[in-house]
């Protein structure tokens, strides 16, 4: 009964979504206030019914109802309850339901938080989101119904959740990632609504901005968690693989990064308008494309869900309608006149243009690399796979190119700046870092040119940002620090930029200075790596909830001082017979020590992989700062004032809105 109720809820949500797509949209052209006013209630209705469907599917998982096909394929009675719950989105059907649930959450949030926007605008925004919901609900109901039953041949037990996914990181990674993916539909909907209404102005940019930042922040956190999970769960210490599915989440992130910055220009100066709209369309299109790549079986990947050409065709048609339709709309309606706002080459606008170029090029490069095998295949030129060498070769120089611009960006002036001032602003940090970089990199590790360069660039960016913070605090000269001058959006930017510098530094250091050793070890033996001494004290076998684990206990010491006891495991899951390596990690700011068990070799001996990973944490701490910074910006008063006043700001005419920094 429960699965059927869930199915019905999903159908009701689908009908409501059709209503949301059609009625308010129609109303917005007829100035029918009643029709437009329906939009928020319909959005809430969709949320209620998708949430009900989601809750009912979760119930089926928790109650071990193996008559439901998805439950039987992805759960098991021995599975701990928390994993029974997260198994819901460890598969195609369930994760699609999560997708729709998150979309309707965003819709409802827009409906509540944007109540003061012009009614036609909000009606159209919600209608566009409603259309997306129609597509995905239809996709779920027609090709991937999560409530399908296995009757009458109900299995006695389920075939278990993939052990790789039985991990706390995987409980929150997909929801966060989807918050980001799906959240990009909000700026997309705003862009489409603005194109339809022909009003691409600063107020449109200001409405979109907090949503974009929040979505992009979630996307950042989601990607960060995924990388972290791969690091500790896959058992070999890698943190990024340029796998097609990783790329699928990375492309919208890159495009979103460009969008976040481009929106800033459009809001404050009224320029780049067509470009910003295009970026908003691209960013969400890349999320949809990612969905297509992951779920259609077009590319092979370890993450890919079960391939099904029928599903692929469905998403492709939907993709063609949504993306093709919006690009056509763009071609027809984008502002025909170039913006009259002028800016000098030496200005903040130009620097943000560089940012936009770099990130758009980066996204294109990742897209090309991801699709290259498909292109060659389509033209029968053979089968290829594109690996990390390609991506690293083009990506690393691009990011290095970006950083000098990043160091000057936040302290540059809108409209017109002088080269003298830039030189003056940059010289001190540049000289300081040029002198410090080799020293710093030598103090921590042996000298390495790449690390020194990374320290130089990262330090340059950080010093630039910190000087700006200091200048804001100290301005006024009356002695006291002006804390109120640090607005949330300024702080958010500061965190994000420092975070970016940390990611770059971490990536370079861990790539250059990692050490690893593969050894055969028995009880009582010890080995040295990176100055640390690892002694394997004993081996044992322990039962777990749904697995049996071989454990080896290591005592790690440095200068004869014991600093950690690490217990890596090799687990064999009972239901599937799959073997999993659970690495043991001693984490630290400056280094991780990482032990993974290989295979047993003879009597009481194991193949062991020891790794020393310097500054690997900086990657995730940095990415966390970026995401946190992005979320923080949405608290800015500027976005709330507009809500309180409820007035419709006038479109920009020739001049920027004068939000001087």
């Amino acid at each position, binding site marked *: 009964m429960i699965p059927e109720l869930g199915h019905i809820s999903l159908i009701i949500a689908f009908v409501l979504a059709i209503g949301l797509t059609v009625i308010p949209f129609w109303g917005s052209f007829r100035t029918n206030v009643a029709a437009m006013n329906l939009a928020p209630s319909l959005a809430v209705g969709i949320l209620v019914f998708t949430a009900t469907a989601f809750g009912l599917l979760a119930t089926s998982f928790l109650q071990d109802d193996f008559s439901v096909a998805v439950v039987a394929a992805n759960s098991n009675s021995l599975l701990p309850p928390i994993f029974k719950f997260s198994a819901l989105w460890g598969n195609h059907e369930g994760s699609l339901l999560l997708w729709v649930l998150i979309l309707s959450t965003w819709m409802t949030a827009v409906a509540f938080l944007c109540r003061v926007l012009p009614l036609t605008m909000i009606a159209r925004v919600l209608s566009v989101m409603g259309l997306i919901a129609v597509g995905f609900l239809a996709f779920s109901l027609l090709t991937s119904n999560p409530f399908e039953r296995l009757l009458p041949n109900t299995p006695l037990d389920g075939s278990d959740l993939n052990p790789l996914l039985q991990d706390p990181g995987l409980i929150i990674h997909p929801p966060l990632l989807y918050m980001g993916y799906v959240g990009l539909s909000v700026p997309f909907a705003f862009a489409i609504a603005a194109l339809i209404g022909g009003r691409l102005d600063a107020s449109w940019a200001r409405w979109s901005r907090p949503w974009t930042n929040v979505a992009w922040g979630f996307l950042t956190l989601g990607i960060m968690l995924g990388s972290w999970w791969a690091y500790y769960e896959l058992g070999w210490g890698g943190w990024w693989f340029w796998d097609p599915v990783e790329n699928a989440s990375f492309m919208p992130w890159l495009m979103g990064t460009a969008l976040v910055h481009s929106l800033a220009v459009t809001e404050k100066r009224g320029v780049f308008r067509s470009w910003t709209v295009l970026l908003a369309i691209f960013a969400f299109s890349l999320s949809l494309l990612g969905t297509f790549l992951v779920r259609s079986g077009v590319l092979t990947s*370890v993450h890919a869900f079960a391939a099904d050409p029928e599903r692929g065709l469905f998403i492709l048609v939907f993709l063609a309608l949504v993306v*093709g339709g919006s690009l056509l709309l763009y071609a027809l309606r984008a502002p025909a006149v170039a913006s009259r706002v002028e800016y000098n080459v030496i200005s903040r606008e130009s620097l943000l243009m560089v940012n936009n170029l770099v990130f758009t090029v980066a996204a294109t490069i990742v897209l090309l690399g991801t699709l290259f095998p498909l292109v060659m295949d389509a033209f029968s030129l053979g089968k290829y796979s594109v690996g990390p060498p390609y991506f690293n070769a083009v990506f690393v120089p691009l990011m290095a190119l970006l950083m000098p611009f990043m160091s000057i960006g936040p302290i540059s002036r809108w409209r017109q700046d002088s080269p003298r001032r830039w030189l003056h602003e940059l010289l001190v940090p540049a000289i300081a870092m040029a002198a410090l970089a080799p020293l710093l990199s030598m103090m921590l590790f042996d000298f390495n040119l790449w690390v020194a360069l990374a320290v130089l660039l990262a330090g340059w960016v950080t010093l630039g940002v910190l000087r700006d913070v200091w200048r804001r605090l100290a301005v006024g000269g009356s002695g006291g620090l002006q804390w109120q001058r640090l607005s949330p959006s300024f702080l958010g930017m500061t965190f994000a930029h420092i975070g970016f510098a940390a990611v770059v530094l971490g990536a370079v250091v861990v790539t250059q200075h990692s050490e690893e050793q593969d050894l055969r070890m028995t009880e009582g033996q010890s080995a040295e790596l990176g100055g640390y001494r690892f002694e394997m004290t004993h081996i044992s076998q322990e039962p777990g909830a749904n697995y049996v684990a071989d454990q080896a206990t290591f005592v790690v010491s440095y200068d004869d001082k014991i600093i950690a006891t690490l217990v890596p495991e090799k687990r064999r899951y009972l*239901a599937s017979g799959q073997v999993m390596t659970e690495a043991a990690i001693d984490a630290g700011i400056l280094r991780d020590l990482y032990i993974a068990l290989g295979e047993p070799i003879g009597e009481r001996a194991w193949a062991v992989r020891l790794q020393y990973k310097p500054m690997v944490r900086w990657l995730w701490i940095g990415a966390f700062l970026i995401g946190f910074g992005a979320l923080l910006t949405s608290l800015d008063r500027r976005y709330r004032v507009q809500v309180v006043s409820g007035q419709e700001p006038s479109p920009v005419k020739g001049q920027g809105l004068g939000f001087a920094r």
Partner: protein
Amino acid sequence: MDLHARRFIPLLGFVLLSVLLFRGLSLDPTSLPAARLGQIFPEFAKLELQSGDVISVVDLNQRPALVNVWATWCYSCRIEHPYLLELAKSGVPIYGLNYKDDPVKARGWLAQLGDPYRLNIVDDEGSLGLDLGVYGAPETYVIDRDGKIVHRHVGILDQSVFRADFSAWFPALMDAQAPVAQRALEGK
């Protein structure tokens, strides 16, 4: 080009992309035209990974057998590896083709993760791979009693793939596979 026409460029790009993606749907990245299907395994003279001896096709003499294309740079190979060990333990002869790899790293990998291979062909330049039509790793071929290539699988080989597509050549194995959980408990 005037400003207006230029705005159609993104749309045009997207149309091209959609055509490509549509074409992609009818291609299955895991099923490949095995140019050599039905033919004898190509002749080669390569070093063996562990012993350093020169080996040729006559050394692949335990048949039917699997030829598994792998490399240490290959992410999916690592995931596939435990299952290969299982198969080797239950008696399936597996020959490795260490594809475009560094032999030192490859030996380290086998030392750490276990070695399911009877022999490992060092194909560091990928020339044998070219003859076979390999496009990436992992890939697994079946050679039958007469040394003919009779099946090709692209991507990770796991239990379900093996049951579906490989068991025809290894019938004895299917009955012999004892419940895995029980073996796990017996341990060493």
